[in-house]
């Protein structure tokens, strides 16, 4: 990257390090850090949406919908999540291909499952075999996001379901007394008020979500764990200008510190958010704020 990097063998330690840390492969590592952050940024709202849908379904008065919501919540929560991660990636992939297979090749007669193979017609392959590399990577990433959203959506649904029930009954009764329909009282009274009850649970969930991101590695995405293993391993002088011993321990130490930092920042941020949301609420926290201001 820098001009003086042309002959690494002559450099002293600090400049050597600055060259070493800016090689092409290290840039990949930094990209994967961005991948993790992007994953968090996409997954958190998606999971929240899944959770909201699950929670509203679970409290629906239409029984099958309510069973669906409750079933979703309890099945996903009862099983080790990494089993779900491993399961959903294959299952979702096969589901998508199967649907495309049914739509695109209706005159295909052979069974899709032949012994140990899962065979769909060429046109139904996802992504198409001739599509470029980045399509494959994006598809893998998309599957990962969807898997995360399904699993964490169930946890979020549980939190939101509890939060909706925690909103004082009197608030809804007042809304009804003002002549609001169930739909109106849900959107105008219940939803704005539930967040303060949901936040402790949701912030807990956020912490868990940040800590679940290394599992991307298991889903076959080239994430930070992959690159840390790759870059940390012993590098022989034959293959690189920057030979070193087994540094994987140090790479993972850096990852550990990265996650600790992420946790610390989240803690501070969520604390502030809680203070803001509590403002003006009919809770002990809100009352304490009112007294402090007066």
């Amino acid at each position: 990257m820098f001009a003086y990097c042309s002959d690494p063998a002559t450099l002293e330690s600090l400049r050597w390090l600055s060259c070493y840390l800016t090689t092409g492969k290290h840039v990949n590592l930094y990209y994967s850090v961005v991948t993790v952050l992007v994953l968090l940024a996409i997954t958190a709202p998606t999971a929240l949406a899944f959770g909201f849908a699950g929670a509203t379904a679970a409290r629906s008065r239409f029984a099958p919908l309510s069973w669906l919501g409750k079933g979703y919540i309890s099945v996903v929560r009862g099983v080790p999540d990494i089993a779900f991660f491993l399961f959903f990636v294959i299952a979702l992939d096969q589901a998508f291909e199967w649907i495309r297979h049914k739509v695109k090749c209706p005159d295909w007669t052979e069974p899709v499952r032949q012994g140990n193979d899962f065979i769909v017609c060429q046109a139904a392959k996802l992504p198409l075999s001739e599509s470029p590399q980045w399509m494959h990577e994006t598809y893998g990433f998309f599957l990962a996001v969807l898997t995360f959203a399904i699993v964490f959506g169930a946890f979020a649904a549980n939190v939101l379901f509890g939060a909706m029930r925690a909103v004082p009954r009197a608030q809804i009764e007042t809304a009804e007394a003002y002549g609001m329909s169930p739909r109106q009282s849900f959107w105008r009274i219940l939803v704005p008020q539930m967040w303060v009850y949901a936040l402790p649970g949701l912030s807990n969930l956020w912490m868990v979500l940040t800590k679940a991101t290394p599992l991307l590695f298991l889903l076959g995405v080239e994430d930070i764990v992959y690159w840390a293993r790759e870059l940390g391993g012993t590098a022989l002088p034959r293959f690189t200008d920057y030979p070193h011993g087994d540094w994987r321990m140090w790479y993972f130490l850096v990852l550990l510190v990265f996650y600790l930092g992420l946790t610390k920042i989240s803690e501070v941020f969520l604390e502030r958010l809680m203070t803001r949301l509590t403002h003006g609420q009919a809770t002990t926290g809100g009352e304490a704020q009112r007294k402090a201001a007066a």
Partner: protein
Amino acid sequence: MNCWETVQAYAFRSVGFGERLLPKEDFTLCQQFTLIGSGMIWNVYFGALALALGFFLATAVALGKGAQNPLLRKLSEWFIFLFRGSPLFIQFFFAYFAFLSLKQVNPIFDPFTAAWLGALIVLFLNTAAYSGEIFYGALRSIPKGDVEAADAYGFSGWPRFRRIIWPTMLRLAWPAYTNEAIFLFHATTLVFFSAFPAWQQRGDALYYANYFADKTFNPFVPYPILAGYFILLTLCVIGLFGLVNRYLNRHLPQENRGRLKLRMNIIR
């Protein structure tokens, strides 16, 4: 090979007894049930041992966090933050490679790079941090009257801790601690998916479930089997912890005895 022979061949495969080669083709349901069940031995081993050992460190950490001495307090706080603030997955990787480097220095560290010891240490420290935080919370919510009554009876020091504070702390922490235990058992599935190698294909339940899913390209059989085993294990844990809960609450009037309320696990 009929089913009973399969059970004989593979029931203890995960700990190195029985058939050496894993089934390669024509996978039967029986094989999947047996091998995944065999892998559960490791999950139970890791979970039970880490929990049993971690319990004592957790008590110490909780007391340390509540201590007057600033050094002890900071030390405990940092310990808890370190293990609760970072992913277990990364902790496994770091520990494995750290042990690998130590092995170069001294061959004493040889067994540490194997899962049975290395992963156990990580799980032990991890659960100690999580339960330490739970115990600390319980320690702070011990009713003031209980401690005052103990003082009035002339209890102090160790007897006061042993007879009053500790049992009350456990009683208050127990529901949350049960969740932590369930959680830990689920977390044991990560061991062979982080760096720790499954020597001679002796892995845990998820290792075998993944093996079958990879070979058959059909996730719809092995993972539900795994899920079934884990639901059974979870029910056992709930049952055992429920018995202890009843024992801890035996002095309370009937309607005050809280039933265990359980929130299921999330990844750590």
